[in-house]
């Protein structure tokens, strides 16, 4: 095996905190609703996403295509491992590009009331296969998406 064909794994943890001016129940609803997610998860106007399957329940599986509207080359599988209404969501995601897996991640969403607001902490534990660009993609995409959630309220 030559060096060029050896895969390299990159493991990283990304933490993003936001405070939203609404209740934990409404923030939770923005994660639960597929329609809401299709609004806020789009990081920029040229990007697109479409669900082939959506099962927001423990043991459920979402299958989503995303990327540029003109080229939705990424396929995400999201499995819900734990859901506590208005408080916590734990999910495992894998992302393939053109049929080849590029990254897997464990994503924890924690919601806490803070007065009349809600503090949200999203922790992404990412394993990227051959790709620092995937880690950059997580940072850029999720930064925009979590900012977008504020527009839901």
């Amino acid at each position, binding site marked *: 095996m030559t060096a060029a064909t050896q*895969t390299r*794994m990159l*493991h990283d*943890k990304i933490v993003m905190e936001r405070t939203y001016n609404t209740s934990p129940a409404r923030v939770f609803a923005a994660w639960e609703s597929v329609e809401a997610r299709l609004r806020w998860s789009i990081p920029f106007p040229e990007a697109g996403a479409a669900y082939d399957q959506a099962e927001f329940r423990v043991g459920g599986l979402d299958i989503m295509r995303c990327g540029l509207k003109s080229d939705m080359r990424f396929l995400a*599988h999201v*499995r819900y*491992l*734990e859901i*506590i209404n208005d*408080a*916590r969501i*734990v999910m*495992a995601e*894998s992302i393939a590009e053109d049929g080849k*897996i590029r990254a*897997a*991640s*464990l994503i*924890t969403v*924690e919601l806490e009331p803070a007065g009349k607001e809600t503090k949200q902490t999203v*922790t992404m*534990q*990412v*394993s990227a*296969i051959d790709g620092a660009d995937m880690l950059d993609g997580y940072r850029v995409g999720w930064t925009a998406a979590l900012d977008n959630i504020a527009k839901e309220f």
Partner: protein
Amino acid sequence: MKRSVVHHTFTVERRYKAQPSRVFAAWSDPHAKAKWFHGPDERSRDPLELDFRVGGKERASGVSKDGTRHTYDAIYLNIAPDERFILTYWMHIDDTPISASLQTVEFARDGGGTLLTFTEQAAFLDGFDGPASREEGTRWLLEQLAQAIGG
């Protein structure tokens, strides 16, 4: 109840005398894995259920000496034969979720043997388990594996 999540990542490296295909098979073959993959102090255990393919599920469950049932459930996310697999797994004690993890296991040729690199990215839920015991348990399991394949 005060909810909490502790995120922790650890990596364990372990060398085996056997070549990568043999070490990999000890994880991918249900009969081979059942020989070493179980808890340390079990009063009884269910047969290992293992469907080793992308999207396939795995379950290992046993009752420990204190009478609690410990259950491991996993789904395989990525498989590169003899080289790597990635799974997500989550643990319950009785009906209480205690952790969720991403586990990456890599197999590299090391002389005539294998260097195994085990990386776990874990979220420990509500204080029922933690980084130190999980890492200790992983080292114990990798030693059980060594004994099962003769080093």
